[in-house]
């Protein structure tokens, strides 16, 4: 509440309008005690700017569609309380970085999802529905590695936070490599070779500079940095024919 003194019962909200060419429009919305950034964007859309383009679906941090740049940092707007990020009664809301803009706060995520596949993110099953379920030891090291990265919902916050993605179009990015790492640790995944080759190809894990922005900004606390380091280590062990099963 420290930034919301009684005399400022309104928020000054600057929202990006347009595509690459555009401008910030400023709106005044009521400051409420319990208010997320997504609530603010919705309020602007409903009461001030019906043509405002933005994405959301679940509103509770499950779907990963409402991520935007809020006061300079990529965040899930639905899980960000205004009180936590407001700066002197003001909010600046922009689309996520590193993806082409479509309109206002909506970006084109095609490349982001394509890169997910390019890094070997497609699961290949080895059994049919008629086979018994393959047992997996939850205490095994591989399963623990997979569990550490499995909660990713592809919101692209890490992709927007990554400076290497910003300057290297070819780099597949942290989310895609984190996905590959979970597959490489999944005993049920049939194409380990294909995933490792894809994740270590040009633009793959070798392009990461270990800056750690992905890890810092991930809303669910995943460390893609760690996953990428895991792929590098696995790649080295594979080269030496010392890769454990």
């Amino acid at each position, binding site marked *: 509440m420290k930034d919301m003194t009684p005399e400022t019962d309104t928020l000054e909200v600057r929202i990006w309008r347009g595509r690459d060419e555009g401008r910030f429009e400023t709106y005044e919305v009521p400051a409420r005690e319990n208010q997320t950034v997504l609530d603010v964007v919705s309020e602007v859309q409903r009461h001030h700017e019906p043509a405002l383009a933005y994405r959301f679906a679940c509103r509770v941090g499950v779907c990963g569609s409402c991520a935007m740049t809020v006061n300079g940092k990529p965040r899930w707007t639905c899980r960000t309380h205004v009180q936590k990020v407001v700066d002197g009664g003001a909010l600046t809301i922009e689309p996520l970085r590193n993806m082409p803009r479509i309109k206002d706060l909506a970006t084109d995520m095609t490349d982001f999802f394509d890169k997910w596949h390019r890094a070997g993110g497609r699961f290949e099953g080895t059994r049919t529905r008629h086979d018994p379920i393959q047992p997996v030891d939850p205490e095994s090291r591989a399963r623990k590695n997979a569990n550490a990265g499995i909660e990713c919902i592809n919101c692209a916050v890490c992709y927007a936070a990554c400076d290497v993605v910003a300057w*290297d179009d070819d780099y597949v990015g942290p989310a895609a490599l984190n996905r590959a790492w979970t597959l490489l640790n999944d005993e049920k995944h049939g194409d380990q070779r294909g995933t490792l080759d894809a994740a270590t*190809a*040009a633009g793959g894990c*070798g392009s990461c500079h270990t800056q750690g922005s992905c890890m810092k900004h991930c809303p669910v606390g995943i460390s893609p940095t760690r996953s990428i380091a895991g792929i*590098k280590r696995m*790649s*080295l062990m594979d*080269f030496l024919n010392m890769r454990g099963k």
Partner: protein
Amino acid sequence: MTEARLFALQRLSAMVLGPLVLVHLGVILYATRTGLTADALLERTTSSVLWPVFYGLFVVMAAIHAPIGLRNVLREWTPLPDRLVDWAMAAFALILLVMGLRAVWAVTGGVS
């Protein structure tokens, strides 16, 4: 050669180069601080098979390590075509190897 293989070669050559560089720096400090003459240095470098082995390994590892790193920098930061960079770096590796080994031979060639 795959990216994964280049990555592995660069990391492994770095692991070898680490201690070699430390010894090399130690040798430089020792040679300059004790005021050895060129003749005295050559006498030492030609007197043991350890020197050509040590610096021969050094040159081979540097010729592997440096072009891979430079290739990464050029690919990431210049608009040069990938194939051009690859050929240029292969040439660079060869130059490092030939010039390095020639230098090693020049100061250790008298080993009997």
